[in-house]
């Protein structure tokens, strides 16, 4: 497939480089074949599927949190919305599972717009705190809205008419692949430049023609939709969902963590973050669940203090050892604001982030 693309000299859109495309396709094929070739155990196989979903969700969170710089502490609201819409549809209609995911996603995206359109006028901390409110309010409503969410007893999905847990690996992979493409497109196309401009200085961006409201709304909608689809995926995966889990504050935090650990604002960092998150979740916290919050809190503190670009930042340090220099504008992918750190401009992503793709494997 890659060879035909090369031989016919297909013109790629400006945001997609041949190198990135090749890496992407190779990675996709490898991951597609991995279970059959490697014969992972059931447990690892299933966890890998779940990891793909968290990667997708983390990347989608990062569009808002990293590309535009609007940190959301309330993405569980969309995750839960998508999950419950999908679950309800699965229970009461004969729609195929992927259609329920999509509808759930779109509903979640629309819900995100509903609260996001007014609150996105706020910048930075103000927006973030507002999202805490969104998350809490949604959680309350969802918990008490028994007709829709089943209240504290949750919803069980009918077994048999969805994909099996084993197949979820590949559906997770497709989901991730789509999200990776969108991530690239959002950052590398001209839209990406506009988003960075908004992140740097909303007013100045508006004064050179960028419409901040529109682009922030679009990004929030996309982000909410993908996280909603992830919710649907999660519902199918678990075959049971309850609002206390889906809408929980901890759920929202998990998206933040995945983004921050992986490298907020980088193109693929959150995918790495998701792997770390799952590893901690499954292998460490399984034995010490009571340390959940504190461990993640400490992780946040350490990342912010010592390597604000998370794993991507670490990789870039390594890369610089070997003389790989990222492009200057790549620094904008990071989280600290321009105004705040004028003299520390080149912690950056650029070329390095293409390579981070290899991280998840």
């Amino acid at each position, binding site marked *: 497939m890659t060879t035909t693309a090369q031989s016919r000299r297909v013109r790629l859109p400006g945001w997609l480089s041949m190198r990135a495309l090749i890496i992407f396709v190779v990675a996709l094929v490898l991951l597609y074949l991995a279970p059959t070739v490697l014969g992972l155990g059931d447990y690892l196989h299933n966890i890998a599927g779940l990891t793909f979903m968290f990667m997708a969700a983390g990347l989608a969170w990062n569009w808002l949190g990293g590309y535009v710089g609007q940190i959301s502490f309330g993405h569980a609201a969309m995750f839960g919305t998508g999950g419950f819409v999908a679950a309800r549809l699965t229970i009461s209609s004969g729609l195929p599972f992927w259609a329920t995911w999509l509808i759930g996603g779109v509903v979640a995206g629309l819900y995100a717009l509903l609260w996001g359109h007014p609150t996105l006028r706020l910048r930075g901390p103000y927006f973030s705190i507002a999202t805490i409110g969104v998350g809490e309010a949604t959680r309350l409503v969802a918990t008490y809205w028994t007709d829709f969410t089943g209240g504290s007893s949750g919803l069980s999905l009918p077994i048999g008419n969805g994909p099996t847990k084993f197949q979820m690996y590949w559906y997770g992979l497709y989901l991730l692949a789509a999200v990776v493409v969108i991530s690239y497109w959002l950052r590398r196309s001209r839209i990406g430049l506009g988003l*960075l*401009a908004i992140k740097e200085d909303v007013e100045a961006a508006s004064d*050179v*023609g*960028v419409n901040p409201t529109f682009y922030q709304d679009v990004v929030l909608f996309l982000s909410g939709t993908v996280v909603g689809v992830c919710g649907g995926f999660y519902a199918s995966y678990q075959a049971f969902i309850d609002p206390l889990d889906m809408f929980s504050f901890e759920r929202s935090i998990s998206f933040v963590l995945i983004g921050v650990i992986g490298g907020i604002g980088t193109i693929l960092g959150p995918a790495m973050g998701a792997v770390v998150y799952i590893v901690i979740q499954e292998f460490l916290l399984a034995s010490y669940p009571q340390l959940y919050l504190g461990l993640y809190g400490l992780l946040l503190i350490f990342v912010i203090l010592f390597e604000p670009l998370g794993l991507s930042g670490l990789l870039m340090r390594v890369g610089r050892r070997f003389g790989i220099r990222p492009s*200057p504008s790549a620094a904008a992918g990071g989280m600290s604001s321009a105004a705040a750190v004028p003299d520390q401009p080149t912690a950056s992503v650029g070329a390095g982030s293409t390579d981070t793709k290899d991280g998840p494997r």
Partner: protein
Amino acid sequence: MSALLVGESVCKYFGGLRAVDDVSFTLGEGEILGLIGPNGAGKTTLFSVAAGSVPATRGRVLLDGKQVSGKSGHRSVHQGICRTHQIVRPFARLSVLDNVLVGHHYGRPGPGHGRPVDHAMGILDFIGLADRAHQLPGELTLAGRKRLEVARALATGPRVLLLDEVVAGLTPVEAQRFVELIRQIRDRGTSIVMIEHVMHAVMGVSDRVMVLDHGRQIAEGTPEQVVKHPQVIEAYLGRDDDEPNDHDEPTHGDGPMGAGDPASGQHAKEKPDA
């Protein structure tokens, strides 16, 4: 000369403060209009209204007969009016080239849109920053950042460019180069309104000059007419409640505004950036 930009009784009040009070003006095609006045006269506010960044309290600004005030900033840009900022606001973590590309991609659709990078480099070349294209704005001098501010605005393809104190704070040599640049921009077909405190700069390059004081328009005319205007002299020097002016007060011939830069104190804040 047909009027390209028209202000009709523009008022902008901040609570009780009349920052801009009933100001009308016109700008012809290919003209440079100087806008001067003491600190706090309302010059920047007038720009903000004209560029759509803030809504007018009353009155409106028309570009080619279509209203540009009272919309959001980006829509005015698409109509062909773009402003620079008195305190430069580059996108600090985007390279110089990317800064200009933002203007190019999101500005008024026009020629050169097939090849964004070529177009942006062309503008940087013209403005004298081509060799800095891959640096960050923070690595430029103040003069460089002011050039970048202008380059980014030019990249939006404006018909009217609003320049807010682009010369102030520069060394005389840099200032001279900048004035030359402004003239060239005009010659390439962009009409300009420029706010400036550096008098010889604004007087030398403007076709007409408008003077604001306490939000009101107190004089308008050719540079020669304006410097002789009694109210202008009073606004700059005359009143008791004003703080005493610089030591090198106007000498003969140079008009009342011979004194250097009345706003020099205020600009201190934008110099030590990095």
